[in-house]
């Protein structure tokens, strides 16, 4: 069997785009082979900032031969009166390379046609690949591309070399003026300068390793992980940062971990600032001691073999200290002006063009908070929560907004509920992120998010299926997470209405659209929690205005759904709902004297006995108890449907029975529309 190796060499690809590009290249190559009926063996992928490479093994020499049928002219013009082939038939035969007498006639939808059957010889696989490669490479889609040649070919960065080997042979092709060959390039400074020849795909990884390029991502990650441990002093540990580990693995061809330090006096700067400077600005790992205290050290990943003279360490330390010097300066100067005195200046900080300044947003958030809870500390937090946007530290490091406000509030001596609420009111930033821990932080975040989403919708800024530039779905999802995590009994409708009061003319139609966005996120979050889709359908059909209660109802339903009585009841409930849709007249209240049949009075009595307990359980949110109690109605309900003719001709009896079923179903619908539950074949995610 044969091996095929392809490497495309470029100028440095952004670290976070390498994996996506490589995946597409690999998929594109496999697709070409599969579309041409070529079986593919093992596929390996390699990458570094300057290259994407794919090695495919177990390839046959040629594509399989295949039978092909080509349709020619209609029979009517292919033969003359004497049934002899005409010029049309001879022309067709010539074109497809088959003798005239071998042509056949085939029945088609449009009548009889001449056809030729021929064997198409399979192409050599290397030819197939060479022909397909330019389109595969050009077909990679990148988040942001550039042009550099007259042809305006778009790619992530200029293409500089193409290595394409079929075993030991070069696969010949050209793309944007670059010709394929057997050369690659080693490390920019340690690789010895010139091109590196690769004799055979088998020697690829080692040839590059010799020239200080580790093309195997896992090898780079392992080296980084190992050296992070080695470079960590006794008693300390690396502050875990999986994202950064991944980034530096894609940023370096020959990663080497180096430890540097900074002056202890900088430890007076809040930890959040130090970590942000190290992590986001310099891509350094921070170190902590056994008690979790930050240490005056950092670990950086170099793109070179070693720091023989200590110059590299000195350079990195100088850069970090200059940044920390700035941070210390901001920490000291920002605090000279309390947050309360900064609020007015928010009039000059734009939130969004259509939605005014952050001062206006602050006032709206305060109003929403006031509607959610009567809590002077929440109000103070709301009043100050955006004031840090006028601080130099936040101007330099926008990712610290909120956090800095909280830290400055704490330094000012404001009460803990106030500074903590400010500190955490942007959380959660992502689905994996934790919501605020404090109740005030949770309510503040909720108010901020509701204001943003309702405001944007009222200004016509809405997410579409493909784009959500203002992150409104994420905002709504964070609100849902907060409602669930804090078990907040807040009505979604009320929250959105409170938010709508902050803007001119938010009509019911806009609120309905916002509600849809929120409910979509409720569904998503609950689905992620593992609830079955039909359980969600059942609970949603009964309404999810109180998100926390909705999740409790899901739990109850999911817990009971498999039980035999419940399944039977779900079937009966479905019948009930079907019958109820047939009667549209207003139904009079139930009359006991009209309960003619034994089965219906039995059902009524069983139902009446249950009702007080069920109401209590509903009040207390014991939804599992409610469902269990209702499941106990299975026998009388079944008997009712067996013995009683609901849609009888006698109008009084009919309406009375429908009333009984309506009352019964209303009780169910306080928890869920269980007719939505799929019986006998429960789904699992």
């Amino acid at each position, binding site marked *: 069997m044969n091996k095929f190796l392809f490497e495309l060499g470029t*100028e*440095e690809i*952004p*670290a976070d785009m390498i994996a996506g590009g490589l995946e597409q290249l690999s998929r594109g190559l496999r697709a070409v082979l599969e579309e041409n009926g070529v079986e593919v063996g093992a596929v390996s992928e390699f990458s570094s*900032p300057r290259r994407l490479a794919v090695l495919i093994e177990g390839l046959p020499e040629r594509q399989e031969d295949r039978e092909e049928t080509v349709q020619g002219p209609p029979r009517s013009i292919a033969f003359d009166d004497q049934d002899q082939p005409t010029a049309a038939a001879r022309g067709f035969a010539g074109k497809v390379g088959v003798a005239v007498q071998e042509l056949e006639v085939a029945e088609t939808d449009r009548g009889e046609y001449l056809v030729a059957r021929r064997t198409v010889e399979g192409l050599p696989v290397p030819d197939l690949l060479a022909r397909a490669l330019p389109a595969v490479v050009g077909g990679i889609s990148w988040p*942001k*591309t*550039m*042009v*550099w*040649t*007259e042809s*305006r070919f778009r790619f992530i*960065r*200029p293409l*500089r070399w193409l290595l394409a080997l079929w075993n030991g042979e070069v696969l010949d092709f050209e793309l944007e003026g670059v010709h394929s060959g057997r050369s690659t390039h080693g490390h*920019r*400074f*340690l690789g010895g300068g010139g091109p590196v020849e690769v004799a055979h795909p088998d020697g690829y990884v080692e040839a590059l390793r010799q020239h200080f390029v580790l093309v195997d991502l896992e090898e780079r990650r392992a080296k980084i992980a190992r050296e992070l441990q080695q470079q960590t002093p006794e008693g300390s540990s690396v502050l875990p940062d999986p994202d950064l580990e991944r980034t530096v693995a894609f*940023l*370096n061809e020959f990663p080497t971990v180096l430890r540097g330090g900074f002056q202890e006096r900088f430890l007076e700067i809040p930890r959040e600032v130090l970590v942000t400077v190290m992590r986001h600005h*310099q891509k350094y790992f921070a170190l902590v001691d056994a008690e979790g205290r930050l240490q005056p050290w950092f670990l*950086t990943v*170099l*793109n*070179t073999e070693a*720091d*023989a*003279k200590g*110059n*590299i360490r*000195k*350079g*990195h330390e*100088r*850069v*970090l200290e*200059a940044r920390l*010097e*700035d941070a210390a300066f901001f920490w000291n100067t920002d605090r000279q002006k309390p947050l309360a005195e900064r609020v007015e200046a928010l009039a*000059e*900080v*734009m939130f969004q*063009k259509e939605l005014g*300044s952050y001062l206006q947003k602050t006032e709206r958030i305060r109003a929403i908070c006031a509607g959610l809870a009567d809590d002077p500390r929440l109000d103070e937090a709301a009043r100050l929560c955006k004031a840090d946007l006028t601080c130099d530290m936040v101007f330099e490091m926008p990712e610290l907004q909120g956090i800095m406000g909280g830290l400055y509030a704490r330094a000012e001596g404001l009460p803990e509920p106030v500074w903590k609420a400010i500190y955490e009111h942007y959380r959660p930033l992502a689905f994996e992120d934790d919501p605020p821990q404090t109740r005030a932080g949770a309510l503040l975040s909720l108010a901020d998010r509701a204001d943003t989403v309702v405001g944007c919708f009222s200004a016509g800024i809405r997410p579409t299926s493909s784009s959500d530039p203002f992150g409104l779905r994420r905002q709504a999802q964070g609100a849902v997470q907060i409602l669930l995590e804090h078990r907040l009994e807040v009505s979604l409708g009320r929250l959105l209405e409170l938010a709508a009061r902050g803007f001119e003319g938010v009509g019911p139609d806009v609120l309905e659209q916002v509600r849809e966005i929120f409910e979509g996120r409720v569904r998503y979050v609950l689905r992620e929690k593992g609830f079955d889709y039909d359980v969600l359908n059942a609970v949603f059909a009964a309404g999810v205005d109180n998100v926390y209660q909705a999740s409790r109802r899901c739990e109850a339903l999911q817990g009971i759904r498999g039980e035999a009585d419940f399944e039977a009841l779900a079937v009966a409930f479905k019948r009930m709902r079907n019958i109820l849709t047939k009667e549209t007249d207003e139904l009079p209240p139930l009359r006991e004297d009209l309960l003619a049949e034994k089965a219906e009075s039995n059902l009524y009595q069983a139902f009446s006995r249950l009702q007080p307990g069920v109401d209590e359980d509903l009040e207390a949110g014991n939804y599992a108890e409610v469902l269990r109690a209702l499941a106990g109605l299975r026998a009388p309900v079944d008997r009712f449907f067996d013995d009683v003719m609901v849609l009888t001709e006698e109008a009084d009896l009919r309406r009375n029975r429908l009333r009984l079923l309506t009352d019964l179903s209303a009780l169910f619908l306080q928890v869920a529309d269980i007719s939505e539950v799929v019986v006998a074949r429960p789904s699992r995610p």
Partner: protein
Amino acid sequence: MNFQEIIHRLLGYWMERDCVVQQPYDVEVGAGTMHPETFLRVLGPEPYRVAYVQPSRRPADGRYGENPNRLYKHYQLQVILKPAPEDIQDQYLDSLRALGIDLAGHDLRFEEDNWESPTLGAWGIGWQVLLDGMEITQFTYFQQAGGQDLMPISGEITYGLERIAAFVNDAESVHDLPWNSRFTYGEVRKREEYEFSRYSFELADVDMHFTLFDLYERECRRCLDNGCVLPAFDYCLKCSHTFNLLDSRSAISVTQRVDLIARVRALAVAVAGAYVEEDEQVPV
């Protein structure tokens, strides 16, 4: 190697590679990109190569000469290679070697950083070059300038001269850098930093500068109406600098800011369009 030697070596290096060695532009600018030798030359089809130093004024970055890294005015060394040769990255790396930097003994990398100037209607794709963690160069393949799609594509190399000098001389503060064998950077420039910081934060006459902005804008338009593109560009640059000054005086409100940026951008786009159009009509 002192500050002026670094400039000398870099200009010498690019002079040997067919670059026209130009002088700084004599209108206040915020970056070397605004020099007409970059902004206008990257437009249109003619190949070009140029290198020059451009003192770049950023009023809001002034620190009265007291900050070790931040300056009201810093020096950029700007190189434009049009079209960008295939080995432009290697040529750049060789220019660092020409400064005596042993790249194998350091940690150099190209990290994604796509340059964009909303006021010039210009953007490009490229990197910041980090040397032992310090950003020493901005490297850009220009894609658009003045709202015009470019072809051929120019490679722009913008060296941060103070950063490179700090690296080469292992200096903690820019003011300690040797300008030459007798004078430090601080001795040459500190008073200027102090006075211009004072001016742009405390003194600049806001009303006058708003008036000037309007006047410069009008003059730019008038030049364009009369087919005189290069003088028009001067007034576009003056608008841009006036905007920066007003900004450092915190005189610009939210809505004004958007509006003023849009006005400068409109001028830059008009200039670029006219430059390409008038190109064929100018007597040689």
